[in-house]
């Protein structure tokens, strides 16, 4: 029986085996820029252009699904631009009232705020006023935010379905409350506050969780199959399993439950070392885990992960984007990917993917290897 790409991904998320291992990697913004060479600022801000790019890349590399890493593009974004300068090919400078942005084909935009308010001390945080009721921004990276247009929060899912019909699986992305907390307080103060002011941290986390839950439930009304939770700071590189249980798990579990009740899958993406907390992540109620970085970036052995959590969760991973795709020889890259496909096939639900997002400078030729190997070695007999 032949599956459509969407059916293939759905089967894996339902812990079933489709015709072959589905392939679905998440592109970093830099990778999209490198592959598509668009007008970088317009690609960042224009939802239709971004959607077109996602579809083009999915088609080009024979992926089975599309992860929408940014949503809430404003159709009126140009209204707030004071100046738009082409610095050179693939490099643009935008000036807004409060900031200057440098967009390029290299990676994420670089932002300089003209008069950014200092981070507040946790004791001075007024939860009613300083933590939003409605989540209207995505903390993309340090000092980089993507504003969610409240009138167009999910237009991109409509654009995408119009373009791809029922062919591909489409996944949304939501950022973990823990990430919002660290962003609000700054990473150092945020992490210290877990032990110095845990109760206030929990109050802030709960308010963010309420807002994120509303956002996730609204997202579920669109024709998507799953939501990825971006939770990059919840691994062993930052916090203990005890802190994970105290400050991450209870909050992620709340909106995971709502997403599951809405009939969508949900999976957690936590980078780096997470081997000590796979079972805790399973307790969240999520349908799957993404990333599971292998050595040296992380410490997860894929086979061991399947043995420990594979009966209840699908796994999406775990190709090392840097050491296997970016820097390895063709032979080594193929060997690494084949090994992952073989291990993945032995599990119940498996989606072949890079662990973290595709590094920007991974070549087009290297990315084509993935679909070739999924096709040749990924068939379930």
């Amino acid at each position, binding site marked *: 029986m032949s599956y459509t790409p969407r059916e293939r991904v759905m089967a894996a998320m339902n812990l079933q085996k489709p015709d072959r291992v589905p392939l679905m990697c998440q592109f970093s913004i830099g990778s999209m820029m490198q592959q598509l060479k668009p007008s970088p600022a317009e690609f960042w801000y224009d939802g239709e252009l971004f959607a077109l790019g996602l579809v083009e890349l999915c088609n080009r590399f024979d992926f089975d699904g599309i992860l929408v890493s940014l949503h809430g593009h404003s159709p009126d974004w140009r209204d707030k631009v004071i100046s738009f300068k082409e610095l050179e090919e693939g490099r643009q400078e935008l000036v807004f009232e409060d900031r200057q942005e440098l967009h390029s084909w290299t990676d994420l935009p670089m932002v300089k705020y003209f008069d950014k308010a200092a981070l507040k001390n946790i004791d001075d945080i007024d939860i009613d006023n300083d933590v939003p009721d409605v989540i209207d921004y995505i903390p993309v990276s340090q000092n980089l935010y993507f504003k969610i247009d409240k009138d167009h929060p999910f237009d991109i899912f409509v654009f995408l379905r119009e373009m791809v019909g029922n062919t591909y699986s489409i996944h949304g992305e939501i950022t973990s409350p823990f990430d919002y907390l660290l962003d609000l307080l700054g990473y*150092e103060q945020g992490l210290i506050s877990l*032990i110095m002011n845990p109760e206030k941290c929990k109050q802030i986390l709960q308010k963010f969780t309420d807002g994120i839950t509303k956002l996730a439930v609204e997202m579920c009304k669109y024709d998507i199959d799953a939501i990825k939770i971006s939770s990059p700071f919840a691994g062993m590189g930052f916090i203990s399993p005890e802190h994970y249980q105290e400050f991450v798990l209870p909050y992620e579990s709340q909106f995971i439950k709502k997403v599951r009740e809405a009939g969508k899958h949900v999976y957690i993406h936590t980078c780096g070392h997470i081997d000590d907390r796979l079972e805790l992540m399973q307790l969240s109620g999520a349908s799957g885990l993404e990333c599971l970085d292998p050595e040296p970036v992380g410490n997860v052995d894929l086979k061991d992960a399947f043995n420990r959590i594979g009966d209840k969760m699908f796994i999406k991973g775990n190709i090392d984007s*840097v050491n296997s795709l970016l820097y390895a020889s063709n032979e080594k890259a193929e060997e690494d990917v084949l090994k992952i496909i073989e291990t993945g096939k032995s599990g119940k639900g498996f989606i072949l993917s890079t662990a973290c997002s595709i590094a*920007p*400078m991974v070549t087009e030729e290297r990315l084509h290897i993935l679909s070739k190997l999924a096709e040749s070695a990924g068939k379930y007999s």
Partner: protein
Amino acid sequence: MDNFIDRISISIQRGKIDANSPYPPDMKGEPGADELTREALQNGVAANDILTLAMIPAMGIVGELFKDKKLFVPQVLMSAKAMNSAMLHLKPYFTSGEIKQRGTFVIGTVSGDLHDIGKNLVSMMIEGSGWRVIDLGVDVKTERFIEAVQENPGCILGMSALLTTTMESMEKSVRQVRSNYPSQRILVGGAPLSKEFAFRIGADMYAPNPQVAVEYINSIA
């Protein structure tokens, strides 16, 4: 003296800053690194002994535990804060020359990269092992690294990158510094890096965690 040395060391290891600090809960109300260091000096304990017998070994233990994933970032940050509170009492002794730092470590996150968590952790641990640290911040251009090396002869240079794209900036900076100063010691670190990458671009050492950085620079001091 031993009593003070042990107690300062434990305060730093446990992240006990001062008597007002509620952390760790089982040391609530007890004096922390701040009061103990002041008292130790008042009682005639040599500043150099406090530095070399209490503070540096304590941060070494913290670094080892962090490397082994037995301590995590929040606890390490508390230890660094406790160490800083003790270090304030030693400043006059550094100024007078009564105690000396091991050398100068210059560090920055490379051009195009705004991430500073890893860099800050490394800075704290290296400062805690008795070095003067000059933190150039984030998004540091190659020219600034070169200037810093020029301004601090004999320093050890550290570069951090969190993004695969900025690994290229790191390569450029390492090669340029190396070209101008062939014998300059350069240490690199960051999540996507590997030992192979570090050596390929001409760095002397790859530090997968702060403790490796500390061990490396102490080994060549």
